[in-house]
């Protein structure tokens, strides 16, 4: 079947297989920032924003995304890096970077709804995003710093 999705503001139509996940469809549509770490919703590497909320794209049937808005990390930066991206680099929050797209999008969902989160709220939010490299110390610091930068920019 054919679905019409909007990815990072760009409408596109894709032929999909029955049962195909949104993750697989995005990856083969060149949105390779959507990472496959487990293919069963455990790791959060494939997280994208679906109508503004973070979901594990491997658990969403592509057919369910028909007519909906998707955001991936490819669409986050404009000319400048988004504060989540720049704060991550400044904090040293990126090591291998494989979990980074999913983690930043999950954080974006948080910050768009909770502009001034506590550290506990950030930890809670990242509970579905495994990172094996950092121990979360610097990613959490980066998200709190990004929140401050975003509030300052308002």
């Amino acid at each position, binding site marked *: 079947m054919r679905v019409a999705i909007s990815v990072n503001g760009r409408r596109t139509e894709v032929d999909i297989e029955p049962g195909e996940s949104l993750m697989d469809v995005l990856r083969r549509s060149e949105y390779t920032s959507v990472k496959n770490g487990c293919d069963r919703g455990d*790791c959060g590497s494939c997280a994208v924003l679906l109508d503004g909320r973070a979901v594990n794209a491997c658990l969403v049937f592509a057919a369910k995304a028909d007519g909906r808005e998707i955001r991936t990390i490819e669409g986050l*930066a404009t000319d400048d890096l988004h504060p989540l991206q720049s704060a991550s*680099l400044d904090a*040293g929050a990126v090591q291998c970077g494989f979990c980074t797209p999913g983690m930043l999008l999950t954080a974006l969902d948080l910050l768009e709804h909770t502009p001034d989160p506590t550290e506990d709220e950030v930890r809670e939010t990242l*509970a579905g995003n495994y990172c094996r490299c950092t121990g*979360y*110390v*610097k990613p*959490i610091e980066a998200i709190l710093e990004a929140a401050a930068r975003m509030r300052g920019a308002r």
Partner: protein
Amino acid sequence: MKFNVVGESERRVDGRSLVTGKPVFVGDMVPADALHIALLTSPRPHARIHSIDTTAAEAAPGVACVLTHLNTPPTRYTTAGQGYPEPSPYDTRMFDTKVRFVGDRVAAVAAETRAAARAAAALIEVDYEDLPAVLSIDAALAPGAPVIHDEEDALDIWDAQRNIASVVSAIVGDARAALEDAEIVVQTVVETQYAQHAPLEPHVAFAHLDDEGRIIIVTSTQVPFHVRRIVARLLDVPIHRLRVIKPRIGGGFGAKQEVLIEDIVAMVTMRTGRPALLEFTRKEEFISSRTRHPMRLAMRLGADAMGVLDAIEMEVISNTGAYGAHALTVLSNVGSKTLPLYNRARHIRFDGKTVYTNLPVAGAYRGYGATQGSFALETAMDQLAERLDLDPVELRRRNHIRTGETSPIFEELGEGRKGVPYTISSCELEECISVGAARFGWHAKRARPPDTGPTRRGVGMAIQMQGSGIPLIDMAAATIKMNDDGSFNLLVGATDLGTGSDTILGQIAAEVLGVPLDSIVVYSSDTDLTPFDVGAYASSTTYVSGRAVESAAEDVRQQIVEVAASALGVNAESLHLADGKVSTEDGAAGLDLAAIGRRSFYGPDPAQIGATASCVPEGSPPPFTATFVEVEVDLETGFIRLLDYVCAVDCGTAINPRLAEGQVEGAIANGIGYALTEQMEFTSEGRTKNPDLARYQLPGPLDLPPIRVFLVESYEPTGPMGAKSIAEIGINGPLPAIANAVYHAIGIRLTKPPFTPEKVWREMRAESLPKQSLPKQSLPIADNR
């Protein structure tokens, strides 16, 4: 020492591409027409393959190629990505006539789609003759145990008939006699579990042919040059017919120091002429990649009444699973990366063996044996402190090694062979202990009266060492060439797997060349384009590859100065390179790097400014850590909550402090998982029960305490800008420090990680029951001599 670029927390050179989601990982750059490969793996723990019928699979739609033992070379090799000749037994074939664990390779099917490949793999008919399976250390060593490696063509197995892959022994003085004479003797036996690296990116590789018909392998590996050498041998093609490219890597932690899939993609491409992709599923990553060697360790310490150690005995039995990848060297490092820490001991005996079992294969895993060894040693040290009624911090201070000192173990125990004599040239362990204890509030917390409620707090500590590369074995090279705008290309075989090594190597080059980091274009690693480096393992990159970069940069700097001297008509000795230009001492004359670069290309007397330098280290300077942890144990549930975690690290110069801290923080998180939750579990038939990230529990952000890392800088005179390597050491701290803190909290010695609530609850329950006459615990190896 003051630097300009070194010591700054520069942004990663690859950071922008990573945070913007550029297609920089192997799986992001697969050719659209690639064949997809599915593996058929063994459902049996130990069986001979009587026959294998691939007719139906080969006839299935979309299938291009099926590989089995019938049509692949029987060459014996090791998957361990180590230098040549590898110190691991050649006990593996691409596909064998025997399977040795549930998950062992049986066949590979390449087809147009992944679904077609999987469907066809299911059509392969295999007739197995089951053999009795060996599923534990004790079963492997039992008299008359089934022989796992009964093949005749294996090489370098210590004693295949007794399932012993390797044996290591090191003797200094007479530990047995010294223990008899010692005023105080403590002993402990600990047993560690099967654990998995779980990089977020599972193993992935693809191959394709270039226009000349050479095989290009793009792979997520820590060891591109070892991949090229090992695969060339398996395919029986000259090394130069292969090119191995490592793009960005989604974590490795040792699992990607193994050549696990590259041989298959290359073979399929060679047979079909088509690009071919193989990526492990998460389940395959658990079962068919590599694990940490589970071990049983026995320690004995003998000390005088002041707590000064005189004798140390360490006995180890390691379980390598079905194949002996890293079996010998991990075993060596159990002792070599722990025992020198306490060099007051004049008598040391280390004895170890590694056994085969019909369980998943162990391999290199961050910490590499030191993780297990340190648990045993630091548990015993805590027992000794208790016996002496001495602060554990004070006991460490009375015994640990210091700058200018040596340990006979450096010479007696290397990596799978004798080591190299070594005198410590930088050690701020004393400062680490002081800083860590102060930041943690050790003395106040330790002296706190015991809790009385349903939860009990306790504090524990441990100290560690590791190394920086493998002396007189590792080799790293770096090439630097200058461009006509005054920038430089830095080409390294060193393999950034997420550690940030491209960045810190760039910083080292920038420092020497007097330019900002963004004037250095860093490229790693590609066997066609970058010079040799053994790869990212053994905490080698900062120290060994860093020294190669520093040497190459110094050579280039000298060439630049000479070109400038000729251009300015002055003596080279009067010139000095800094801030992007070469100037005379008085600043009267100077030339910027762009002008020098242009002159080097377009004359007069044009010549490329550039250099390649290599480093083979004479020693392996250890980084040191002091770890302090506070726990709260729930008496009703057995749940251990971590309240605080402090680690002070002697890393030499921190080339990039934030990246250095990140290495330690991440290693600690991984070590906390190993201590508290992570364990591969098996059925009685050797099948992995929890091969996914739901049932195998990695620590998440809600499970982890604040992890507070403090860099205690020292200056390693042999290191690049004074640096040492620190990627591994942090992982060794959590297990002993947590166990010691739990003892402080509830008076129970936990010896078998992971310390799950159930296990802790059962221990507490057993403790509160009336004491039965328990069988006396004996040292394990003595029983099996």
